[in-house]
C-alpha cells in the first residue's frame, strides 16, 4: 500500500493523470518519485518486490496485489468469495506498461462491442455485470530478435541450350542488419490465447517504463506461470518472416529459384526475452446454470476490447424469423415449390448445416481439450492423449501477414473458379442433353450438380495449394478434428436429412405428398441441427469453470 505523504491515506495509480493520486486529499505523486519503505527497498535491490498473493479457494487462481485490502471475488472463475491472502516476494519484471485506459473507458469500449452483438443475452449488457471489470496487470514476455550478418543463400538457374541443360549454382550475398524489439505474448496460462490474441498488440516501445511496484497500486496482477519458451517460436516466426520479406524485396531471388521459406532458413539471429506486466481490464460472467463462464477483456493501453459472447436462442430465433419474412416474399416471387426442388433445397441446406456443425464441433472439441491454447498446454492442462497432444503441439502457426495480397488473389481465383466451373458444367449438361437427345431431367440436374461440386472442390483445393506454395506457406494450420464418436451424436440429423432426400429421389414415388413430407422432415431436422449449432456456439463462447487448475491444480481434482 502506498501512503500519501501529505495525509497518510491510500494512494492509487490514476490512468488519466499517469500519477499516484491520494484517495483522500487528491495529492498527486509521480510513481518514479515514490520512495518505498527501507525493507522493501532492500528487497527491490535484490530483484524482488513484496506483494500479497490471493488464492481463490474455488479454482486455485492466484492474483497479486500490493495493497492490503481483502479481495472478495475471483476474476477467473467469477466466484464471490474472500480470497486467501499471504505475503510473498515476487520477482520484479523488467518493465510495465501502466494503465492508460480507465475503468469507465474500458466499460464503454466493452459496451460498444456488446452492442454490435445483436443476439447477446441481456445479462451481458447489465450495468451490474459490466461494473465487475477489474484492472489486472497481465504477465507478458517481450521478445527481441536481432541479426547482423552477411546474409548468404544458395540459388540455382537452369537454361536449355540445344540438347544440353546448363545448371548454374549461385551464392547470393547481402549484408543485413535488423532488429525487432517488443513482440509480446502473455505468460499466464489463465489468460486464454484467443482473448490475449484478440486484444494484442501492446506497444512497449511507446509506453513501457521500468517496473515499479507503485504502478500496481489500485490494481491486481496475475502471477504468471509460463516460461518464455512457450511462445518463443511464435515471436521468432513473426520477426523472421518479416526480415525474409524485406530481404526478398531487395533482390530478384525468384530468378534463382529462392522462395521465402529458403530465405527464412538462411537467416541467423540472436533472440532474447524480457518479462513485463501489461494492463488488461478483465471481466468474467457465469451462465445462468452457473457451470460455465465467459470472459471479456479490454486492453488497458489501447482500449481494444474482445469478448466471448454467447447467443440467446430466443433472440436468435426471432432474428431468423424476421429475416425469413423478406426471404419468403422473394421466394414466392421467384420460386415455385416442386417436390424435386424442395428435396434438392433440403439436401443442400442439410449439407450446409453439416459443414457448419462439423466446423463448430472441431472447434468445441479443441477448446474443451485445451488443444487451441498453447499456454494451457504448457501449464500441463491438456488431457493425456498422445494423438491430440501432437495436434496441439502443431497448433497456432500464425498467418503470414505480408502474404495478404497472395491470399486475396487466392480467394478471388477460387471464387472465380466456382463461377467458371458452374458455367462449364451447365454447358456440358446442355451438350449431353443435346447429343443424347434427352430432356434436362431431374437426374441429369442432380448428377451435374454433384459432378460440379466434387470437381470444383478438388480444383479449388489444388489451386489453393499452388497459391500457398507461392506465398511460402509450407503447411496449413493443422486443424484439430474431433473424434467421430463425439461428432456423430450431433451430425446424424443432417445425414438423416440427406438420406431421406436421397431415398425419395431414388424411389421416385408418383404422389407429391411423399416428397413434401420427406422435404418437411428434412427441414425440421435441419432446424433441429441449428439448435445444436447454437448450443455448440455457446460452448465455444463459454468455458468450463476452472476447478483448481489455474495454478498447480489438477483438472480432475
Amino acid at each position: 500500500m502506498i501512503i500519501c505523504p501529505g495525509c497518510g491515506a491510500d494512494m492509487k495509480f490514476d490512468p488519466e493523470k499517469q500519477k499516484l493520486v491520494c484517495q483522500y486529499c487528491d495529492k498527486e505523486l509521480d510513481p518514479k518519485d515514490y520512495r518505498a519503505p527501507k525493507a522493501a527497498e532492500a528487497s527491490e535491490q535484490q530483484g524482488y518486490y513484496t506483494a500479497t498473493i490471493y488464492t481463490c479457494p474455488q479454482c486455485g487462481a492466484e492474483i497479486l496485489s500490493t495493497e492490503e485490502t481483502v479481495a472478495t471475488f475471483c476474476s477467473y472463475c467469477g466466484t464471490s468469495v474472500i480470497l486467501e491472502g499471504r505475503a510473498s516476494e515476487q520477482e520484479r519484471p523488467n518493465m510495465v506498461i501502466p494503465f492508460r485506459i480507465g475503468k469507465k473507458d474500458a466499460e464503454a469500449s466493452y459496451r460498444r462491442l456488446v452492442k454490435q452483438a445483436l443476439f447477446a443475452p441481456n445479462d451481458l449488457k447489465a450495468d451490474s455485470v459490466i461494473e465487475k471489470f477489474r484492472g489486472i496487470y497481465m504477465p507478458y514476455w517481450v521478445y527481441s530478435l536481432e541479426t547482423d550478418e552477411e546474409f548468404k543463400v544458395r540459388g540455382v538457374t537452369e537454361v536449355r541450350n540445344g540438347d544440353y541443360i546448363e545448371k548454374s549454382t549461385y551464392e547470393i550475398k547481402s549484408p543485413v542488419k535488423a532488429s525487432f524489439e517488443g513482440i509480446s505474448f502473455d505468460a499466464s496460462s489463465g489468460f486464454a490465447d484467443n482473448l490475449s490474441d484478440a486484444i494484442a498488440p501492446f506497444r512497449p516501445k511507446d509506453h513501457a517504463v521500468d517496473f515499479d511496484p507503485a504502478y500496481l497500486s489500485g490494481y491486481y496482477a496475475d502471477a504468471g506461470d509460463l516460461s518464455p519458451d512457450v511462445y518463443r517460436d511464435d515471436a521468432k516466426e513473426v520477426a523472421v518472416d518479416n526480415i525474409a520479406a524485406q530481404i526478398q524485396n531487395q533482390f530478384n531471388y525468384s530468378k534463382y529459384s529462392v522462395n521465402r521459406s529458403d530465405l527464412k532458413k538462411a537467416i541467423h539471429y540472436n533472440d532474447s526475452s524480457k518479462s513485463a506486466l501489461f494492463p488488461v481490464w478483465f471481466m468474467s460472467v457465469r451462465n445462468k446454470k452457473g457451470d460455465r463462464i465467459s470472459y471479456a477483456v479490454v486492453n488497458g493501453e489501447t482500449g481494444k476490447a474482445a469478448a466471448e459472447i454467447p447467443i440467446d436462442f430466443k433472440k436468435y430465433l426471432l432474428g431468423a424469423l424476421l429475416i425469413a419474412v423478406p426471404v419468403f416474399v422473394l421466394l414466392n416471387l421467384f420460386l415455385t415449390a416442386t417436390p424435386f426442388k424442395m428435396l434438392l433445397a433440403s439436401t443442400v441446406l442439410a449439407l450446409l448445416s453439416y459443414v457448419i456443425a462439423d466446423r463448430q464441433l472441431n472447434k468445441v472439441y479443441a477448446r474443451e481439450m485445451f488443444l487451441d491454447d498453447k499456454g494451457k498446454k504448457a501449464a500441463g492442462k491438456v488431457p493425456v492423449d498422445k494423438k491430440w497432444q501432437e495436434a496441439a503441439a502443431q497448433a497456432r502457426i500464425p498467418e503470414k501477414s505480408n502474404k495478404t495480397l497472395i491470399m486475396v488473389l487466392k480467394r478471388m481465383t477460387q471464387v472465380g473458379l466456382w463461377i467458371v466451373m458452374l458455367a462449364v458444367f451447365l454447358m456440358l449438361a446442355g451438350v449431353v442433353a443435346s447429343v443424347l437427345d434427352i430432356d434436362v431431367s431431374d437426374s441429369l440436374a442432380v448428377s451435374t450438380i454433384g459432378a460440379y461440386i466434387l470437381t470444383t472442390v478438388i480444383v479449388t483445393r489444388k489451386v489453393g495449394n499452388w497459391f500457398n506454395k507461392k506465398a511460402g506457406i509450407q503447411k496449413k494450420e493443422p486443424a484439430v478434428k474431433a473424434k467421430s464418436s463425439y461428432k456423430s451424436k450431433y451430425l446424424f440429423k443432417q445425414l438423416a436429412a440427406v438420406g431421406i432426400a436421397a431415398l425419395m429421389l431414388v424411389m421416385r414415388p408418383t404422389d407429391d405428398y411423399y416428397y413434401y413430407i420427406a422435404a418437411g422432415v428434412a427441414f425440421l431436422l435441419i432446424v433441429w441441427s441449428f439448435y445444436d449449432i447454437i448450443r455448440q456456439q455457446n460452448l465455444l463462447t463459454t468455458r468450463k469453470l476452472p476447478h483448481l487448475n489455474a495454478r498447480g491444480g489438477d483438472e480432475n481434482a
Partner: protein
Amino acid sequence: MRKHRIFILILLAMLLFSVSALADTEAYTNGETGYTALIEDDADLLSDEEEREVLETMIGMTEYGDCGLKTISENPKSSAKAYAEDFFYQNFQNHTGVAFLIDMENRELYLAVSDGAVHNAITDAKALTVVDNVYTMASRGDYAGTAEKVFSQCTSLMRGERIAQPMKFICNALLALIIGLVICFEVANKAATPGETTDTELITAAAVTFAAGAAAANLVNKRRTYSPISSGSSGSGGSHHSSGGGGFHSSGGGGGFHSSGGGGFHGGGGGHKF
C-alpha cells in the same frame, strides 16, 4: 348478371352448331376472338357427355387463346412434353394458347403453354402448379375432372385470379426460415468470436530496424547435362493449339425454347406423373 347468362346461352347455342361430328373429337371456335378449343380423346378416356362438359369449360379459355386437350395411349415422341408441344403446333400453329396432354403410356400429364400473352399469365411455374393441383384426380381415373380443372384454372389465371398453391407457401416458409437461421448464425458467429491480431499489427507495435546492402549473386559452379529434346515433346517454348468444340447452342428450361420435334412451338409449360 342477366347479361352474363344471356352471353353463356349464346355461347352454348354457338357450341351446338360448331361442335364437330367426329367421334372422339370435339371442337369449338370463338366467334369473337377466333380462338379454338379442341379435344382429341385418342385414348378414349372421356365419354361423349364428359367431352361436352370439358369443352364447355374450355370455352372460357378461348377468350384469351387456343386450347387443346389430347389423350393418348401410346406416345411415339421422346416425352409427354414433346408430344404436347407438337400437338399444339400442329393444331394452332403460331397462335397463343395452351395444350393439355394426358399421356397414358408414360402416365404423365403435361400442360404446354405457348409464347405470348398466355405465357405471361400462365408461366412455367404456374403451369407446374396447375398440373400439381390435378394429378391426384388423374391418379384416381377422373380424367374429365382433371381436364376441367386444368382449363378452369388456366382461365382463372388469364383473368388475373389466383389459384391455390398451398405447398408453395408451406415449402417457401420452411425454406425462408432455414435461410434466416443460416444468415443469423453467420451474423451471430461474427459478433460472438473474438477477432485475431495479424502479424502486421504485431510488427507495427514493435520497434523495428532493417538495413540491407546491395545483394550480389556469385557463380559457384556450372553443370551441363546432355538432355536431347525428344521428337514427341513440344518443349517448354513451344505453343500448343487445340481444336474442336466450336460454338453450340443449348436450349431448354423455361420459356423461349425451340422444339425440333414440334416443328416450331415456342413457349414453356409443366408436367407431372400420375
